[in-house]
């Protein structure tokens, strides 16, 4: 098994007089995997993202990215491999055109101009924004802005993209579009993906989920495994997807739902074949 990222007993606090935000956290991200991290505000999930990118450095434990330990000396190498998309795409826009903004990350990493021109085309095409390269970024819709932000990160050719609440400011349609774009990009370019989110629909699409609670890794598994622990999740104040709750209610009402459904289609499959199983 090849791990792209390894967290080994990582602890972190922002100041010495403050409590630990992360406490002895260990986990890994495999190559080509989509890992989702969920948890309450203050559970430490965004701190994990910043530690992976070298924006913060751990006080205890170690973090390895592609076999290289994250330190002051390696952060620039790490940032080429780990790209981040934030909640507010405007924070990542500095140019007057979409093209300029996609070039920005590559410019900082000192890529040759010829390669930059090629990658502007390919990364905008990957997110379906190739017709917008001469547009002004601030005139785009929220979803389009976020797709440009993803293209900017893709252009640097990272091996892992972190989406830190990247769809939080979008409407449901915009969220769906972004998640489809991300899934397509991940499959086409063999990327690892880490999403930090409150949106449960995003979580069900991931390969694996980590639930953070009070700075510790609280639960880990596939989305189906994690959402089957409904009571545990409820106890720490986390919600489950509507379809999971509906399936629980149906089970309580005596309908034998065989598996934990993650979407309406799966529940529908269970329900319409129910009669043949009874």
């Amino acid at each position: 098994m090849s791990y792209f990222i390894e967290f080994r007993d990582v602890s972190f606090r922002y100041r010495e007089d403050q409590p630990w935000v992360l406490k002895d956290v260990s986990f890994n991200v495999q190559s080509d995997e989509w890992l989702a991290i969920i948890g309450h505000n203050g559970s430490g999930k965004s701190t994990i993202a910043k530690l992976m990118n070298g924006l913060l450095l751990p006080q205890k434990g170690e973090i390895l990215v592609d076999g290289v330990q994250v330190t002051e000396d390696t952060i620039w190498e790490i940032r080429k491999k780990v790209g981040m998309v934030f909640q507010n795409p405007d924070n990542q826009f500095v140019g007057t055109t979409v093209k300029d903004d996609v070039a920005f990350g590559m410019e900082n990493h000192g890529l040759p101009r010829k390669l930059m021109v090629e990658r502007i085309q390919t990364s905008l095409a990957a997110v379906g924004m190739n017709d917008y390269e001469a547009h002004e970024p601030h005139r785009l819709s929220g979803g389009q802005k976020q797709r440009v932000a993803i293209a900017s990160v893709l252009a640097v050719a990272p091996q892992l993209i972190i989406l830190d609440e990247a769809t939080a400011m979008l409407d449901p349609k915009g969220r769906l579009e972004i998640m489809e774009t991300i899934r397509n990009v991940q499959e086409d370019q063999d990327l690892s993906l880490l999403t930090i989110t409150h949106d449960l629909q995003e979580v069900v699409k991931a390969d694996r989920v980590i639930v953070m609670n009070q700075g510790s890794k609280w639960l880990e598994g596939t989305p189906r495994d994690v959402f089957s622990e409904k009571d545990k999740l409820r106890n720490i104040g986390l919600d489950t997807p509507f379809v999971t709750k509906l399936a629980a209610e149906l089970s309580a009402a005596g309908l034998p739902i065989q598996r934990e459904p993650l979407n309406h289609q799966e529940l529908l499959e269970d329900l319409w074949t129910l009669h043949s199983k009874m």
Partner: protein
Amino acid sequence: MKRKGIQQMSWKGIAAFTVLILILPFLLSTSLMITKATFAGIYTIVAVGLGLLMGFAGQISLGQAAFYGVGAYSTAILTATFGLSPWLSLLIAIAAPALIAYILGHTMARLHGYYLAMATLAFGIVIHVLLVEWKGFTKGASGFYGIPKIEFFGFTFTQGISYYYLVWAFALLVIVLSLNIIHSRIGRALRSIHDSEVASSSMGVDTGRYKMQVFIISAMFAGIAGWLFAHMSYSISPGSFGLDGSILFLTMVVLGGSTSVWGAVFGALLITAISSFVQALGSKISFITSDFEHVLYGLILMLVVIFLPQGLFPAIAAKLKPLLEYAGRKKKAGNITAVKGDQRA
């Protein structure tokens, strides 16, 4: 190659501004007004540097007058005490503030926002105390006398039109350089730092290095202004380089608009004009003293921060933009009609 977009507009702006600067002395009736216009040029140099630091790197400095003072005193001491040529001392007047900014930048690397403002404020006070107390070099609070004039191939720049043009030549150079910086890779990196340091770092921007660079550039600009100020006057005293001066420069930048180079220029010109107006008023009305200026600046600063936080220049530019776009479209439509008319003919 034809320059496009903002850069093309900037060159048009520079050309128009240069013409204005060239003809201004012929429009000003008294030598006092020319002196004020010269001071406006000196202030512009400091304000543009501070504008880069505040508006683009998101750092606040309350010690800019100290860098200005270091530039002024280093050239004064080197030329008057050690007989160095003012042109050679210009290099020291730029290098000394740059070196201090480099050292300060390293020690302040972990400071942000208000903490950095407080640290630069403390630095300003330290420099002011040094200028007053280090009498062996600076001649203390009474001031440093006997600063020679700048000569260029036998021509002496004395106070008046010649010095006005010298100052504004440097000011235009600083403006052009700053516009180039903000339209370059450094400018984009600085804007990203201003928007979000975390996002900027994740995009590969070495935020610490860029903040340091712009801090040094702003100190160098203040040093140039100090050099020009020292050789304009026969004497200088520490009073010109205290906290009042730093707040004045800050007011210029906030008033004009820190996110635009032209905003800093506009702020410097406006504050100089207000200062001249208050002084003129003071000569007629007894209760309007020089302290009244500070009250007025404080009031302006408060009103701008509350009602126009982006500053006057961007607000005016935003109002004018639709008109200019409309005029541009009309001109374009006129050109198309003219071409069609030619074809028909």
